[in-house]
């Protein structure tokens, strides 16, 4: 049967999500947030999820809605600080011990996700050595420099945002929209790409930035380029 990964709706594209799922969300600085998919996830409403996202609290992302709705048991992030002096909803839940936080240097964060998609269970890095975030991790010296052992992150579901996709699940991105989306798509069992435009015809090979093998479902949401 001819492959066609275009879904009729965000909810259909995401499909059922079990409680306790590890869910990755792309996006950085306003680029690459799959907010239509995040709204749909809120509707689906899985509980006790682990949220893997660069920021737990970015104002342009809707991940904070998932947190406020009490669906999130744990976040793995490089940024968890709300703007301003007042505590954000995340910070209140965290202070009260109602949400678990794993704070990771952003490069270790992306490399651990890449490792999860590339069959690498663990790797050594100098980043984080000698810091609170590296505390308790295995230390090993290579070339006279101490490094720490970091393990792969894999997930059940990745919600990413691209510009265009085709029926094969190939995705192309606009400018810095890629950020974590490409790696997250490789590291999750089920990946849904929210795109401006989902086309019948194949994207030319040299314009594909995320091969279709990593994308299970494509949801077109329109909007401007």
């Amino acid at each position, binding site marked *: 049967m001819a492959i066609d990964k275009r879904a009729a709706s965000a909810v259909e594209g995401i499909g059922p999500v079990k409680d306790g799922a590890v869910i990755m969300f792309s996006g950085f*600085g306003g680029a690459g947030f799959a907010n239509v998919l995040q709204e749909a996830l809120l509707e689906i409403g899985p509980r006790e999820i682990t949220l893997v996202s660069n920021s737990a609290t970015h104002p342009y992302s809707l991940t904070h809605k998932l947190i406020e709705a009490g669906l999130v048991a744990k976040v793995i992030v490089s940024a968890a600080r709300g703007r301003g002096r007042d505590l954000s909803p995340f910070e209140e839940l*965290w202070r009260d011990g109602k949400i678990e936080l794993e*704070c990771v240097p952003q490069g270790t964060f992306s490399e651990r996700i890449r490792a999860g998609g590339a069959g690498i269970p663990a790797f050594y890095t100098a980043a984080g*050595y000698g810091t609170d975030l590296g505390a308790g991790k295995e230390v090993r010296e290579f070339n006279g420099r101490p490094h720490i052992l970091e393990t792969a992150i894999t997930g059940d579901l990745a919600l990413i945002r691209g510009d265009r996709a085709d029926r094969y699940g190939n995705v192309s991105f606009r400018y*810095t929209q*890629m950020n974590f989306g490409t790696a997250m798509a490789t590291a999750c069992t089920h990946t849904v790409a929210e795109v401006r435009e989902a086309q019948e015809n194949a994207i030319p090979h040299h314009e594909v930035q995320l091969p279709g093998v990593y994308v299970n479902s494509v949801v077109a949401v329109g909007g401007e380029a």
Partner: protein
Amino acid sequence: MSALNRNQMAWRAAQDLPDGGVVNLGLGMPVLVSNYMPADRDIFLQSENGILGVGPEAAPGKEDRNLVDAGSRRITLRDGASIVDSVNSFAMIRGGHIDVTILGAFEVASNGDLANWDSRVPNKGPLVGGAMDLAAGAKSTWALMQYNTRDGGPRLLEACTLPLTAPGCVDWIYTDIAVVQVTADGFVACELIEGISAEDLKARTGAPIAIAGDCKPLMAPALDED
């Protein structure tokens, strides 16, 4: 002259950037450095979200929300720019391909330890971003910071009191009153604003600091504070 303002500090650091170099500017004051790049040098600014070749901020009405830098500013690309994903951006950073990263700092120790990510505000969530990757991975890390705290306390210390970003990473410190090199023997002031004596400087420093034999006056053109 009196102590440098933020723009003057950024200007001073910019003068030392290597021609043809790849430079990553941290959030806050370091971003100001991009306003003062020497005209005779061809420098590529890297942004942790995947840009090699950050250009000026986009003109009003020309912004693209998918073209942003590490500080979420809507920017343009310079000639010769390219874009990669976060994995490849941090491979660039962690693999030693950034010539210089200029980072803000709370504290620097005389062994080069940097503390710049966690000021221990109660109950506020942590925000590390790419700071640890940059400090551990760049060929050279420069701190751009006020020499003293608001209360006049020292920020150049024998040992950091705040959580470390990376051990032994800082090579140069650009401040409002001095340019300081971090050497195997500790802090060495290489430039000092006029009117501050060696004794003044030592009194404002939380660790031994030497004055370079060829210590020069720290100077910058008049630049308004933002």
